[in-house]
């Protein structure tokens, strides 16, 4: 039914809106942390080794950080498996100290969203896009806007065609970065071995 699709779309948009109140009162870092916690992810602040994840109330977990938001910026965000969209990324990209971003297995993240990551170009060192079903090789081409990347995880991207070639091109584009995933596909089985019965229409 079409109204179900509309409702789902509306819920997705609501989850990804920007919270202007928190931004005006507490700044970018707390806004990003609140957004991440309310979407089921985790955030790590500077000089800390533990991840802050949502308890019963997203803001309760953040209370210790509200006193002096500027002294403890967010350095790592884990949003794997969340329903993050292109608009939702607007909450995160204005962070000045973000080094680690895990966006693996986000079903709504597509090529348009990857263009939004450019403000993080100076600080971002680790990015994971593994298992995102909508990311294609066209979106991966705009990752050259993140020149300080050291570690890029692009494993198991089903929509990327020509994975071996993409791996070589990405390594050329980001020479200092270690690319995980996108290695050559396993060689096809030999002619003598038994073939799988009735798989697809090939």
């Amino acid at each position, binding site marked *: 039914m*079409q109204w179900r*699709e509309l409702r789902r*779309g509306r819920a997705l948009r609501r989850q990804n809106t920007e919270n202007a109140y928190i931004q005006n009162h507490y700044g970018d870092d707390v806004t990003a942390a609140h957004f991440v916690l309310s979407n089921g992810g985790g955030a790590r602040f500077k000089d800390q080794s533990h991840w802050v994840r949502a308890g019963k109330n997203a803001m309760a977990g953040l209370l210790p950080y509200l006193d002096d938001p500027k002294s403890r910026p967010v350095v790592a965000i884990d949003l794997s498996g969340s329903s993050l969209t*292109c608009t939702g990324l607007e909450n995160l990209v204005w962070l000045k100290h973000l080094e680690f971003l895990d966006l693996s297995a986000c079903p709504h993240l597509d*090529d*348009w969203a*990857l*263009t*939004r990551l*450019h403000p993080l170009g100076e600080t971002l060192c680790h990015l994971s896009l593994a298992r995102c079903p909508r990311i294609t*090789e*066209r*979106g*991966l*081409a*705009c990752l*050259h*806007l993140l020149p300080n990347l050291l570690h890029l995880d692009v494993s198991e991207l089903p929509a990327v065609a*020509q994975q071996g*070639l*993409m791996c070589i*091109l*990405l390594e*050329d*584009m980001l020479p200092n970065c270690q690319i995980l995933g996108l290695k050559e596909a396993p060689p096809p089985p030999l002619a003598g071995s038994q073939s799988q019965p009735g798989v697809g229409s090939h």
Partner: protein
Amino acid sequence: MGWNSLEQLAISFPLADLQKSLTNFQSQLKENITTLFDNPFFDEKRPPVQAEVVIVGGGVMGWSVAYWLKALEPRKNALRVLVVERDPTYSRASTVLSVGGIRQQFSLPENIQMSRYSAYFLRTVNEHLGVMNEPPIDIQFNPSGYLFLATEERAAMLEENVNIQRAEGAEVILLSPTQLKKKFPWLNTDGVALASYGLEDEGWFDPWSLLTAFRRKAISMGVHHCCGEVTSFTMAFCNSVTPVGEELMVSRIKYACIQMPDSLEYHEVACALVVNAAGAWSRKLAEIAEVETSSSKTKKIFKLPVEPKKRYVYVWHSPDGPGLNCPILIDTSGAYFRREGLGSNYLGGMSPTKDEEPDIQDLEVDHEFFQEKVWPKLAHRVPAFESLKVKGSWAGYYDYNTYDQNAVLSVHPVVMNMVIVTGRFWRGTLSDFPTGLKPTLKMEPWPRQEDHIAPARD
């Protein structure tokens, strides 16, 4: 009739030929069944006798007008919309022959806003144009950005334009030659004083998939379409006076006469509004209406300042060319190129100078133009292009607005019910199709858009 012939066939031929006669019978039956349905209720080939809006031109502009009309109509089925397209193979249509770029780097705030809306529309294209039970739309967007290079003389203008773009919310940065070299090591920054690079919502996509998406959605919302050519209008005239006191003849189109393809058959469709979305041929169509309207008393002939211009696009293969981080590069000389796919293929071209304008009679490609004019400029800018091999080429028409190269999106000054939606060329940039039409079709006076149609004073 079918069963009798089967019996006859079975009796007259031996059994060995039964297979052949059965197939024969099947094809005869099929023929007869289609004639059963050949009546006005089922025949989409003939246009309806009356349609509130007749859109002439089935490219992306025409179909997006049809979609927005249906999306914004006040009640369900309030408007009957008919799209008339002369060539269903789209062999000469600008939409499918274009390079398919979208950018926000314009100098007019209105163009920037329209383009930003287009980017939003394309981002959420499945929400707008998705049809139940059909596969999701994939326009194959490459978000690689546009890179404009400027010499010393034009650097100030480029900077001013970038400021306007940033004020409107576009993410564009300025790059010096050293920064350019660092970002794009394959580029030769000789003669470049400044460059502007679009970071978000700029790149290229597949215009054909967008056109089919608009078509599919509009038809699912009840838009009629027919294949034919609008050859004449039946109009009603009235004498009126302009605010300065001159006498003027104004007119309204009452009927649009559509000629069916390959036949003498024609249909008159009663219409309230005619939308001229004919692209490169919009002037010809407007002339059909204008010629009848021009009055000998006023000696004023209103001409739509849109002309078709032929442009070439060449595809080449260059093994050492730029890799993944290759934007659509517009050189200081006007030559442009972009990457095509992952296999070191590129496509590009250049706008010829006024003296070199090619003849618009056909779509034949001039290969000498590439060898002599385009290649040297590209090879100077990208040294890797010194060795390249041309793989193919094509030509397409631009609907070029000779007045100020902006879109013409307004009502015709004397033909009161012809809305003109054309003039959008920019190397095949399709940045404006949804927005430009959204406000027009609320049938209100356009709040912000300047009226680009100027009467040509002969």
